[in-house]
């Protein structure tokens, strides 16, 4: 089966000498909801910039649905929609015109473009603002405008670069629903985000990039399976005078007077509850301290940093 996106030995060295990508290979299968994660400066934006045609690669190849960006750019680009991190539309143009004009760049006639623009502006709650100048929209509306613009030509592959940055929780949730709906209808989605709970909630496969190298590229399930430790915050009625003891688990108390337990992946929670019961501790509630992907992300990047220092 043809991959939605296939990068081979992709390399980018900027004029300053900075080697942003060190020959990465990456495949995203059709219909996937894929996360590309990494800290600032890891190479995410460079990778997506090359795929989008905004950055010149130094070497390597990019294929979109089997079409090489160098030899078949029209076939490749017409299957791609891009929602960038920064606002990149004419702030003085009307919302409707921005979306219809983008469709025109794809060779879509005005009548069809107008219908498609209306469809996505309505879906994203911007139809009432269609005659407003883009600069008058709120930050969340501007992000949704960029999504509508990226979808107006019905791309098979959608790249979302930090789509929910600076968006309130309610809107973020509604955008998640919209992305899931798009993916369910067959659109392959590649997402970059700093909200790791977003990647954990939405994506099936995840790649982690740092310093221009892909450190992990696997399914979310397999990735989370690598998590060695997990930390839970337990709200107990009364804190114990003596900390419970359990091999493979470490109990502490945090600043908010909660009981905190960090356990190895091999320990199941029943054993933790058994120890709590043995100490007559009454549990009111329990939650993970950070999301699992976030813990793993920090662990992988930490491992890489140590590896870099020792190698």
């Amino acid at each position, binding site marked *: 089966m043809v991959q939605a996106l296939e990068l081979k030995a992709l390399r980018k060295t900027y004029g300053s000498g900075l080697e942003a990508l060190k020959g990465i290979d990456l495949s995203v299968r059709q219909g996937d909801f894929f996360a590309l994660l990494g800290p600032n400066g890891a190479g995410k934006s460079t990778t997506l*910039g090359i795929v989008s045609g905004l*950055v010149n690669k130094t070497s390597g190849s990019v294929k979109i649905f089997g079409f090489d960006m160098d030899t078949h750019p029209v076939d490749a680009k017409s299957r791609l929609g*891009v929602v960038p991190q920064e606002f990149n539309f004419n702030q003085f143009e009307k919302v409707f015109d921005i979306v219809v*004009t983008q469709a025109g760049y794809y060779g879509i006639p005005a009548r069809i473009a107008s219908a498609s623009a209306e469809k996505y502006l309505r879906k994203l709650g911007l139809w009432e603002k269609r005659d407003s100048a883009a600069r008058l929209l709120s930050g969340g509306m501007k992000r949704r405008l960029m999504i509508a613009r990226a979808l107006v030509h019905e791309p098979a592959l959608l790249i979302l670069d930090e789509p929910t940055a600076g968006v309130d929780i309610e809107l973020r949730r509604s955008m998640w629903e919209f992305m899931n709906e798009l993916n369910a209808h067959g659109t392959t989605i590649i997402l970059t985000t700093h909200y790791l709970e977003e990647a954990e909630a939405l994506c099936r496969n995840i790649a982690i990039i740092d310093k221009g190298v892909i450190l992990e590229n696997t399914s979310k399930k397999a990735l989370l399976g690598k998590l060695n430790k997990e930390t839970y915050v337990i709200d107990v009625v009364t804190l114990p005078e003596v900390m419970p003891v359990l091999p493979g688990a470490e109990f502490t108390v945090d600043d908010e007077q909660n009981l905190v337990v960090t356990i190895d992946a091999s320990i199941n929670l029943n054993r933790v509850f058994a120890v709590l019961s043995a100490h007559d501790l009454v549990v009111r509630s329990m939650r993970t301290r950070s999301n699992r992907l976030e813990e793993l992300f920090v662990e992988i990047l930490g491992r890489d940093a140590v590896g870099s220092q020792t190698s």
Partner: protein
Amino acid sequence: MSAYAIWVAFSTILVKEIRRFMRIWGQTLLPPAITMSLYFVIFGNLIGSRIGEMGGHDYMEFIVPGLVMMSVITNAYANVVSSFFGMKFQRSVEELLVSPIPYWVVLAGYVAGGVARGLAVGLIVTLLSLGFTHLQIHHVGVTVLTIVLTAILFSLGGFINALLATKFDDIAIVPTFILTPLTYLGGVFYSITLLPPFWQTVSQFNPILYMVNTFRYGILGVSDIDIGGAFVMILGFIAILTATSLYMLKNGKGIRS
């Protein structure tokens, strides 16, 4: 892209460009109308009446073709350089870069936008001039061809300037320090036969002299230079600037990192 899709993409850019300069008509169409009216009044009527004839024609008649051409040159150039640099500045140029639109269509669309504004302003100035003098077009074909080719040439120049520019100052340098002096010294207000032989020879290196004179020939039937040679030169410049623009677009000069 199919031929129809390319046509849609081209007309999208052209319509966007026309809509842009029409929306801000107070900055694009009105100023040249006011400036040229002042030229007609001051140089044509007040000073021109004391000069008498130039090149066998009334002075007002003589300067009208040059002033029309000057408006076309500055406006075609300004339209493309300001619009495309504005897109770079606001990053909306990325809308074009992610799309499958071929580079030559991008160039054709912006050049057509520049030509549209150049011709619109040229028409406005010509109509205004009719309030001051009587114009009889000597050769319609030469007149139309010259004005269109000149607008294309300077739109291409504006496009290259926009690609190279990194700040707003960069888009003002060429019009202020190159275009304006070359236009004023390109025979808009005088016939180069009035100059001493040395300065006549120097003037021959000014490309705008050829455009102004070819256009003047189309309207009045008089010229200081060879019309055929002038067309060859204009077409040659267009070919060079087109090739340069396409090369820069393909390599992402000024628009891709």
